[in-house]
């Protein structure tokens, strides 16, 4: 790890100022990606701005028909939160299976979505639940937030504040884990409710995506059987030593069915 300055501001305004002062500064949330990258000397920011001291970014609250999760809320906190568990159990279930206990105690929802790892769980969770992302500048629908592999709609000086999830009538998440990293080889979130019927996939492609054909099929008949015969093309999917594109395409169907069966 190269030397760097460390800042722990207590307000978003301070963060904005620190960012504008230093071109090479990086924001760190839980540090689950940035810190290992720095340790491997693949990233060498001049300064690291730790969001851990900003209390308004933490915690879960209810806002009308929405569950609002602060950007600095850890996966462990989401998984264990009673509001999340009662209103959107699929969200708690998804968070419960991110990484391992250490990652869940450090990693945050804001850090995860801002990084937009193609195999992370949260992109599919947000898109599949029709969430919206509040930043220090605006509100962005999850559908528009995740742009491409490791790329989001966030501007350079834009910071995720919270994620708002409309409470669905039912939702389920199923994940086929990479046996080594336990990231998603394929993860599918399905939901039905005020946000419509949604099927969102992570891990399979370069970025989380929705499967419209499955959504239409589930719209009238929210059952695993409704997905029979619906497949996604393998053409644009990821292929690596853990799974070929063809296998991933097949798993999207299997995991979608499992997610529907798990939905509550």
């Amino acid at each position, binding site marked *: 790890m190269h030397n760097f300055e460390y800042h722990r501001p207590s307000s978003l305004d301070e963060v904005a100022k620190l960012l504008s002062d230093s071109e090479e500064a990086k924001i760190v949330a839980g540090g689950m990606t940035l810190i290992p990258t720095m340790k491997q000397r693949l990233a060498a920011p001049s300064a690291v701005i730790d969001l851990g001291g900003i209390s308004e970014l933490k915690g879960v609250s209810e806002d009308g028909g929405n569950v609002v999760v602060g950007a600095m809320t850890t996966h462990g906190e989401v998984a264990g939160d009673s509001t999340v568990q009662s209103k959107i159990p699929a969200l708690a279930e998804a968070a419960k299976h991110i990484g391992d206990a250490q990652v869940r105690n450090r990693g945050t929802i804001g850090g995860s979505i801002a990084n937009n790892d193609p195999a992370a769980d949260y992109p599919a969770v947000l898109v599949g639940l029709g969430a919206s992302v509040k930043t220090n500048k605006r509100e962005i629908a999850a559908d528009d937030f995740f742009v491409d592999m490791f790329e989001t709609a966030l501007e350079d000086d834009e910071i995720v504040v919270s994620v708002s999830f409309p409470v669905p009538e039912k939702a389920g998440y199923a994940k086929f884990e990479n*046996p*080594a990293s336990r990231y998603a080889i394929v993860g599918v979130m399905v939901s039905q409710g005020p946000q419509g019927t949604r099927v969102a996939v992570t891990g399979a492609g370069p970025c989380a995506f929705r499967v419209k054909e499955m959504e239409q099929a589930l719209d009238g008949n929210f059952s695993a059987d409704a997905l029979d015969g619906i497949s996604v093309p393998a053409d644009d999917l990821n292929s690596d030593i853990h799974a070929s594109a063809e296998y991933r395409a097949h798993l999207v169907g*299997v995991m979608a069915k499992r997610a529907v069966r798990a939905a509550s």
Partner: protein
Amino acid sequence: MPDTGIGASTRRKEDQRFLTGKGRYTDDLNRPGQTYAVFVRSPHAHAGLKNVDTSAAESAEGVVAVFTGKDMEDDGVGSLPCGWTVVDKEGNPHKGPPHFPLARYKVRYVGDHVAVVIAETLEQARDAAELVEVDYDEQPANVEPAKAMDAPQLHDDAPNNLCYDWELGDGGAVDEAISKAHHVAKLDLVNNRLIPNAIEPRAAIGEYDEGTDSYTIYSTSQNPHLLRLILCAFVLNLPEHKVRVIAPDVGGGFGSKIYAYAEETVCTWASKRINRPVKWTAERAESFLADAHGRDHVTHVELAMDEDGNFTALKVQTTANMGAYLSNFATCIPTYLYATLLAGQYKTPVIYANVKAVFTNTAPVDAYRGAGRPEATFLLERVVEVAAREMDMDPAELRRRNFIPPDAFPYDTPVALTYDTGNYEAALDEALKMIDYQNFSERKAESEKRGKLRGIGFSAYIEACGIAPSAVVGALGAGVGLWESAQVRFNATGSVSVFTGSHSHGQGHETTFAQLVSETLGVPYESINIVHGDTGSIPMGMGTYGSRSLAVGGSAIQKACDKVIDKGKKIAAHMLEASVDDIEFDKGAFRVAGTDKEKSIAEVAFAAYVPHDYPEGVEPGLDETAFYDPANFTYPAGVHICEVEIDPDTGEVEIADWVAVDDFGRVINPMIVEGQVHGGIAQGVGQALLEHGIYDPESGQLITGSYMDYTMPRADDLPSFKVGMTETLCTHNPLGVKGCGEAGAIAAPPAVINAITDALGVMHMDMPATREKIWRAAQQNRQPQAAE
């Protein structure tokens, strides 16, 4: 049942310090004036070193020195040796090209050592390492053993990248038997490359003492004396009495910490050059790149049978990957620890093996838990399974039919070993009972109702352990003897210190050996401590590998205890005013036979150190040393049976049940033995389902260079094991013990693959049997499955 003697599941002495974070590992140690070493490693699989410019690094902040292969060459530092000469088919010794600690002129795998940067702090060394400018002349590389003989040549003195072309057995007789056979089962298979991954990465501190012109090396070694011997005699040209090697607590080895590596060599050498201690601790990424890997064979096997399924011949052709250079014992693994085990538990009358060892642009390959024996067992138990299916015979019964019967021991195999004892059918019977084999078809039907495919897989394994009789291995090319030593020292107040050449790095020797001594000398378990791992305090020792610690090291301890008792009898006779011949020793007391006159061994020890009234001609002290060189290998054997359940829709496989019935001879601590079995199976399951060291065939880059891609087995991949035991005592060591450390890793892979291929109805699947491979096979077989 005693709670601390032989046969007791005594809790481990080691647990107190390990479970409370009080273990002392090499990286925990820091020496006054210590510096930190970082290695500059080759990013290329094969390249000439046109120029290594260290000037910028040398002038960087905190840098003490930067060294390259040229500096070591100028200082007369030698090559890391291969300690086992294998003689090829033509009678020539294997090709052993030099393996310099820092590369000279050329690098041959990704991770090869180009330079070392030594600085005041680790961060400074890392920063400066990035400033070493290396001008590489990239050359085409090959990482695949099967293509090695046609690939670009790695070493000038190894044409066709061939290390040796070796054979064992009567090829003519085998070919004749095959030509006359009723049926020949054939199989092509790969034994996948594994990366060891001990929980503690390798580490070393080299320290030179100018006052005494001597060195101390702290190292994560499984065998401190052997490391000292190799470094002194072959590499650094130092007198052994001027070098002390300390291997403190070591967190696992599995073979990978047997060898003398570049890093501790460089730290030791550099400590004199800069006259300060030099410390290096591997990052996990370095462990992946530069620890010796395991396995990596490509094999064709043929098993001939008569019409009743009696095996009539076995023929094996293997290409074994040595990696870019020969690690210390690389040559003997696919020969004398592999081909000699091809009889397995069977009375196959003729066997022939041909092994070609080749160089590739990959990390060196050497012994890894089981070392040769897992490879032999995998091919044998796989081809036996194929034979059973092709002959439409029950796989358990085909094995039973061919077992060496209990009354045939000692049994000379056609591949150079003499099995001393065993009862293979007893283990099979017990295993069949434990797994409830007769009701397997019901369980299979029940799985099918749930849309799952169930399979059962057998593995009847044998291993040659207790390595090894020195005269035998010497005749086969070993450069060292493989005895072990022990010193049993009574302290004046009755406690006992045992000094052993065996090294414990997770095996629980401090407990097992103390139980052995407690039982033998009748001294309380708590009053015994086991000292190991320091050439400055223990007698010569050859270390821990090949499941040898109890069979060889424990036997040496037993012999030293016997000497203590013999001497104690003389002292006790004097104290009891009796003749030595009348003194009996039992449960810690010397007694005049037929009387109640006795002296405890503690009283005798006290008298030995305070010899005011003492027998004439007897030396003071009660402190005896013994060396033990075994007469034969030991032959642990057993039967493992695995049941799997497969989801054909995803290829997910669940190990539904696992039965292990092993014969380890006498068991000192059943809990520790079960733990060894569990850990071995976990590693074997890892090989069968998950682990695979993969290099990119084009670039030679290690693709599985971290835990993001290299899949280690975890608790949730494994079932609760059912462990059973049978017992035939080893006939040639004083304890009747055989060794248990490697059994699980040897037995498990074929059990898993036999179960998976049984479930899928296919003949073979290469390891690791990934979910995708299983899914594809399940898809292809859906039609016939449905038609059944």
